[in-house]
C-alpha cells in the first residue's frame, strides 16, 4: 500500500491536534492559535495534494483507483464495528478542496476576526470543524462518516452561536442543530438497518463491504413494508440525513438563519464544505442508491426522489433569494438552491456530475461569502444591501473578485466555472428518461440565479453609498465585546487588508479555471471519477451545443432583466421600495417572507411539540403526582383510622375494663378499712338482718 494511503489519517488528525492544543492554551495566545490552525491546515493540504497526485497515476486496469485501510473499533459478540479510510477519486478531490478552502478561510479570518476577544477560541472551533469534516470525507465506514457528520454539526452549532450574546445567534444555533438532527435521525436509523441487514458498515472491504455487490444483492432481494426493497428504504432514510445537512426542502430552514455566525464561518461551513457534506454522502453511497431489485429495470426510486427533491429545492430557494435584503441571506438561499442543483446532478447523471458542481461551487461560493465579509468589514458591519451601495471605487479588489464569483454563480458562459458544471447537470437532466420537467425547472432556476445575483451586485456595488446616515445602534458587534474599541469608527467604506484580499484572489482564480476540467470537449473530471483515460475531442461539441445555447439564453435574460430593474442609477435612497416590489407586490411579499415556511413550522411542529411537552408535564405534576399523593393520603387516612380505632375501641375497651376493676376494688377496699367499730357495726347489722329474716320466715 502506498504510504500516503496508509497515513491518510494524518489529514484529519493534524487539525484535531491543533484544536486540542488551542483548547488548553490561554486566550491571550492569539498568534500561537492562529499559526497552529493555519500551519496544521497547510500541512494537511500538502498531504491531500500528495494523495490526489497518487490517484492521478494511471492504473493498468480500467477500474476506479481505490485503496482502503480498515481496523476494528470495538467488537460485540461475534461481530464488530469497523472504522477505516479510503483513498479514491471522490475522497481525494474532496480532501484537496476542503483543505484548500479551509486554509484560505483561516487566513482570511486572521484579518476578519482580529478585533474579537475570543479570537483564540474561534480558531480552536475552526480547527475542530476542519478535523471532523476531513474525517467525514476520508471515511471508509458509514460509522466513521456518521461520527464526523455529528462532530461537524457540533462545530457548526458552536460557530453559529459564536456571538451567543446576540439572541438571534443563539436561537439560530439551536435551530440549526435541532433541524439537522431531525435529518440525522433518519441517517442513524438507516445506518442501524443497514448494519442489521448486511453485518458491516465498511464501504469497501475486498468484496465484503456494504457498498459492494454481494451486500447490495442481499439488500435488493429483501422487501419491507409496502413491498419496497430494503435497499430503497435504507437509501431514503440516509437521504433524510443528507437533506438536513444540505438544506434541502423542507429541512432548509436552518441554513439562512445560520448566517448569524461570523462570515468566515458562513463561507467555510455554510457554503463550501459542511453543507456540501449531504451531497458528498449521497455521492459516497451512490451504489446503494443506484441498486435496483432484479425484477425492476430503469432508474431506482431513490434516485428519482433525490432528483425531484433537488430540483424543487433549486427553484424554491432561488425564488426566495430574489426578495431578500441581507447580503448574506441572499447568498444563503443561493447556496440552498445550488445544493439542489448538485442533488439533481447526482440524481440524473451520477456522482461525477454532482461532485463537479460541488467543487466549482465551493470555490465561487466561498469567494462570494468572503467578498461579502470584506464588504461587511469595510462598512461598519452593515449587512442590509439597501444601506450599502456604490462600493466599487472604495473596494476595487473586493469588487473585481466578487464580480468573478457572481458571474461564476450565475453561469456566464465559457470563462466561468459555474457555467460548465451547471451545463453538465442540465445536459443530464435533459437526457433523463423519467421526465423532462427537471430540465425546465433547472433552466428557470438558472434564470433566477442570474437575476438575483445581478440585483445584489447592483445594490451593493452600483449607485452611490447609502450607508453611514443612521446612528450606530446596531453597529459593530465585534468591538462591543472586545476589551477596547479596536479602531475609531470610519465614516467611509474602506478596502480590507491583504490577509483578507489575498484569499479572495486565490479563490477567484479557482472560480475561473476549475471549470475547464469538465467541459464537453475535454471531460477530464468525469473520466477521472470513472477510472477512464481522458482525451480532447471537439466532435462532442456538436451534440452539446444546443443545451449550452439554451442555458446561455436564460442566463442572459436573467442578467438583462436584473439590470433593467436595478442597474444604472435606479437605487437612490435606502428607504426606497424594491423596484420589483412595485412591479409584483403580492408575489414579492410572499417571497420576502420565504413562503411562510418558518411560520408554518411554528404553527405545527413547534407548537405541537410544546403542547405534548406541556401535557406530559401536566400529567406528571397532576396525575402521577396526585396518584402518589392520593396513595400517600390514603395511607395516612388508614393510619388515622387505625389510630382512632386504637384509641376509641381497643384502648377504650381496655381502659374501661381497667377502670371497672379499679372501681370495684376501691369499693371493696372501702369496706376493708381496718376500724373495729365499723366491723362490729356491720356484724350487728348483719345479725339484726338475720334475726329479722328468720322471724319473718317463721322459722324461729
Amino acid at each position, binding site marked *: 500500500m502506498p504510504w500516503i494511503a496508509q497515513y491518510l489519517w494524518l489529514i484529519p488528525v493534524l487539525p484535531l491536534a491543533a484544536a486540542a492544543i488551542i483548547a488548553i492554551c490561554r486566550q491571550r495566545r492569539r498568534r500561537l492559535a492562529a499559526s497552529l490552525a493555519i500551519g496544521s491546515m497547510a500541512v494537511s493540504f500538502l498531504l491531500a495534494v500528495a494523495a490526489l497526485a497518487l490517484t492521478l497515476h494511471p492504473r493498468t486496469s480500467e477500474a476506479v483507483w481505490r485503496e482502503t485501510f480498515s481496523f476494528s473499533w470495538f467488537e*460485540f459478540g461475534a461481530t464488530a464495528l469497523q472504522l477505516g479510510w479510503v483513498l479514491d477519486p471522490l475522497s481525494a478531490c474532496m480532501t484537496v478542496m476542503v483543505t484548500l478552502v479551509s486554509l484560505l478561510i483561516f487566513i482570511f479570518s486572521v484579518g476578519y476576526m482580529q478585533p474579537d476577544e475570543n479570537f483564540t477560541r474561534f480558531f480552536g472551533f475552526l480547527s475542530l470543524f476542519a478535523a471532523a469534516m476531513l474525517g467525514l470525507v476520508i471515511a471508509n465506514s458509514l460509522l466513521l462518516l456518521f461520527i464526523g457528520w*455529528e*462532530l461537524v454539526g457540533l462545530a457548526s452549532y458552536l460557530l453559529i452561536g459564536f456571538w451567543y*450574546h446576540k439572541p438571534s445567534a443563539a436561537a439560530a444555533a*439551536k435551530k440549526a442543530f435541532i433541524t439537522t438532527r431531525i435529518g440525522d435521525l433518519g441517517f442513524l*436509523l438507516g445506518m442501524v438497518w443497514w448494519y442489521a441487514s448486511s453485518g458491516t458498515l465498511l464501504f469497501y472491504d475486498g468484496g465484503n463491504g456494504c457498498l459492494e455487490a454481494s451486500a447490495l444483492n442481499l439488500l435488493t432481494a429483501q422487501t419491507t413494508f409496502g413491498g419496497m426493497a430494503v435497499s430503497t428504504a435504507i437509501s431514503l432514510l440516509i437521504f433524510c440525513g443528507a437533506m438536513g445537512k444540505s438544506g434541502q426542502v423542507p429541512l432548509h430552514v436552518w441554513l439562512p438563519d445560520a448566517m448569524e455566525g461570523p462570515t468566515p464561518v458562513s463561507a467555510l461551513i455554510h457554503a463550501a464544505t459542511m453543507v456540501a457534506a449531504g451531497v458528498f454522502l449521497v455521492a459516497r453511497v451512490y451504489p446503494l442508491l443506484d441498486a435496483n431489485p432484479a425484477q425492476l429495470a430503469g432508474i431506482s426510486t431513490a434516485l428519482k426522489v433525490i432528483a425531484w427533491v433537488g430540483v424543487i429545492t433549486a427553484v424554491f430557494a432561488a425564488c426566495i433569494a430574489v426578495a431578500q435584503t441581507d447580503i448574506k441571506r441572499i447568498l444563503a438561499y443561493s447556496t440552498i438552491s445550488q445544493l439542489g442543483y448538485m442533488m439533481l446532478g447526482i440524481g440524473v447523471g451520477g456522482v461525477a456530475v454532482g461532485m463537479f458542481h460541488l467543487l466549482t461551487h465551493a470555490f465561487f461560493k466561498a469567494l462570494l461569502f468572503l467578498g461579502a465579509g470584506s464588504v461587511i468589514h469595510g462598512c461598519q458591519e452593515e449587512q442590509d444591501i439597501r444601506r450599502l451601495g456604490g462600493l466599487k471605487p472604495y473596494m476595487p479588489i473586493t469588487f473585481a473578485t466578487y464580480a468573478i464569483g457572481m458571474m461564476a454563480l450565475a453561469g456566464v458562459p465559457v470563462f466561468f466555472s459555474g457555467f460548465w458544471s451547471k451545463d453538465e447537470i442540465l445536459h443530464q437532466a435533459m437526457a433523463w428518461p423519467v421526465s423532462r420537467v427537471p430540465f425546465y425547472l433547472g433552466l428557470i432556476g438558472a434564470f433566477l440565479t442570474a437575476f438575483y445575483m445581478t440585483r445584489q451586485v447592483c445594490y451593493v456595488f452600483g449607485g452611490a453609498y447609502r450607508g453611514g446616515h443612521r446612528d450606530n445602534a446596531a453597529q459593530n458587534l465585534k468591538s462591543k465585546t472586545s476589551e477596547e474599541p479596536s479602531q475609531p469608527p470610519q465614516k467611509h467604506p474602506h478596502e480590507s487588508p491583504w490577509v483578507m484580499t489575498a484569499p479572495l484572489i486565490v479563490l477567484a482564480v479557482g472560480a475561473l479555471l476549475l471549470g475547464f476540467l469538465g467541459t464537453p470537449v475535454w471531460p477530464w473530471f468525469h473520466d477521472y471519477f470513472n477510472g477512464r483515460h481522458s482525451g480532447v475531442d471537439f466532435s462532442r461539441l456538436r451534440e452539446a451545443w444546443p443545451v449550452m445555447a439554451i442555458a446561455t439564453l436564460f442566463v442572459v435574460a436573467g442578467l438583462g432583466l436584473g439590470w433593467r430593474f436595478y442597474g444604472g442609477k435606479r437605487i437612490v435612497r435606502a428607504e426606497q421600495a424594491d423596484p420589483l416590489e412595485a412591479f409584483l407586490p403580492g408575489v414579492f411579499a410572499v417571497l420576502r417572507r420565504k413562503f411562510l415556511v418558518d411560520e408554518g413550522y411554528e404553527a405545527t411542529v413547534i407548537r405541537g411539540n410544546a403542547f405534548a411537552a406541556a401535557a406530559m408535564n401536566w400529567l406528571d405534576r397532576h396525575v402521577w403526582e396526585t396518584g402518589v399523593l392520593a396513595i*400517600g393520603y390514603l395511607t395516612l387516612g388508614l393510619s388515622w383510622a387505625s389510630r382512632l380505632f386504637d384509641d376509641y375501641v381497643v384502648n377504650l375497651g381496655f381502659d374501661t375494663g381497667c377502670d371497672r376493676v379499679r372501681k370495684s376494688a376501691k369499693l371493696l377496699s372501702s369496706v376493708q378499712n381496718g376500724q373495729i367499730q365499723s366491723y362490729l357495726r356491720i356484724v350487728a347489722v348483719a345479725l339484726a338482718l338475720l334475726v329479722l329474716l328468720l322471724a319473718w320466715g317463721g322459722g324461729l
Partner: protein
Amino acid sequence: MLAWTIYLSFFGMAVLMLLPADRPRAARMIALGATLAGLAFAVSGVLQYRNHPPADTILTITQVTWLRSLGLQYFLAADGISLTLVLLTGIVAVAGTLFSWNVEHRTKEFFAFYLALIGGVYGVFLSFDLFLLFVFYEIAIIPKYFLIAIWGSTRKEYGAMKLALYSFIGSAMVLVGLIATYVVAGTHSFNLLDWVQVPFPRSFQVWVFPLMFVGFAILAGLWPFHTWAPTGHVAAPTAASMLLAGVVMKLGAYGALRVAMTLFPMGVAVWQDPIAILALIGIVYGALVALVQQDFKFVIGYSSVSHMGFVLLGLMTLQTVGLSGAVLQMFSHGIIAGLLFAVVGRMVYDRTHTRDLNALEEMRLSKALPFAAGTFVVAGAASMGLPGFSGFVAELQVLIGAWQAFPSYAVLAGVGIIIGVAYLLRAQQKAFFGDMPEKPAEPALDPITIPERLGALLLLATTVAVGLYPQFLLDLILPAFHPNAPLMGVLTRGGVL
C-alpha cells in the same frame, strides 16, 4: 481483594463517627482517602479480571456460611457486569467527594452517611447470595434518606420521604419474590448460582418475574414509577444527587438484570413487550417533560428518566448487542449524569443560590463561570449522544439491538434522542448563554475551586475514554452474556425462551 471496597467504605464511616465534630478538614480527607482507596481496589480488580479472566466468568471473592439453619451465606463474587458497575461506583464516589468539598454543615456526619451509602452500593454489586444482596440494598436506602433530609434543599423532607417510601415498596416486592423463590427452589440457600440451575415452573415465573423486575426497576426510574427520581434528585445535595443518578438508579437496573431476568427467563419472554413499551414511554416522556422545566435540576432529573429508559429497552432486547449496550449505558449515564448534576448543583446553585432558568438567564454565567459553562457544554454533548463520548457507543448498541428485536420501537427511541438535544440546548442557553448586557454587574461569584476542576476532569476523561475505546469495558461485559456463561448466558442462549 475487591471486598475491600465494601470494608473500606464502612471503616471510613466508623472512623468519621469517632472524629470530633470540629475537624471538617480531616473529615474530608478521610472521605477522600476512603473513596480513592475504593477506586484503587476497583481498578485493580478490573485489571486483574481482564488479565486473568476466570474460566466460568465468575470470580469468587469470599464464601462462608452465615446462618446455617436458613442456608444463608456471606458470598461475595463478581463477573464483568458487577465489575463495570463497581468501577462506576468508585469513580462517581471520588468525584462526589470532590464536589462536596464545600459542605460545612455537620461535615463529618455528611461524609459518614455518604460512605455508608457507597459501602452498601458496593455490597449490592458484589453479592451473589441474594439475601446478602437484599441486606446491602436496604443498607443503601437509609443513608440516602438522611443525606437528603438533612443536607438537601427545595422540599427536602418531602423528597427524602418519597424516595424512601418508593424504595421500601420496591424492596417489599423484591422480598416477597425472594421468599417465594426460596420456598419454590427448595435448595435451602439463597445462592444465585444454585438458583440459576433450578428450572422454575413457567406458571411461577410468570407472576414472580414482574414482581421482582418492577420491584427493582422502580429504582431504575421505570415509567410510571419514576416520580421519585426528579423530586429526589432536586431535593438532594450535589453529591447525593450524583450518587442517586449515577449509581443508585443502576442498583435497580442491576437487580432487575441480575436477579429477575437471570432467574426467570420464561417470565422475561412473557413480559418482554409490555416492559419494552414502558421503557420506550419513559424515553420519550422523560425527554418531553424535561423540555418544559423551569428548575435546572428538574431538567437533568427528567433526562435521567429518559436515559434510563434506554437501559431498560436494551435489557428487553434479549440480544447480546442490546444487553451489552444496556450495561454500557448504565456506566455511561452514571458518569454523564453525575457530571451534569455536579455542574448544576455545585458549580451553579451553590454560588447563585437559584436554579430557576429564567433567573440564571440574566446572570451571564458563561462570563462569570466559564469553566462551568464549558464543562456543561461538553457534558451536554455527551448526554446528547454525540460520537466521541460514551453515550454514543452505548445508545448505538441499544438501537442496533432494538432494531433487531422490535424495529418500530427503535424509531420512537430515536425521537427521544432528538428531543434530548432540544431540552439540553434550551437549558444550556438559558443557564449559561443568556444576554442581559444592560444589567448592572452581579456581585462576583467565587471562582471554580481546584477540587471541582479535578472532579470534572475525572468524569470527563472517563466518558471520553470509554467513548473512544469502549472495548475496555466491553471485554468485561461481553463474556458475561456469552451463551455459555453460567449466569446470564440463559438470556442469549435462545431456545429457553
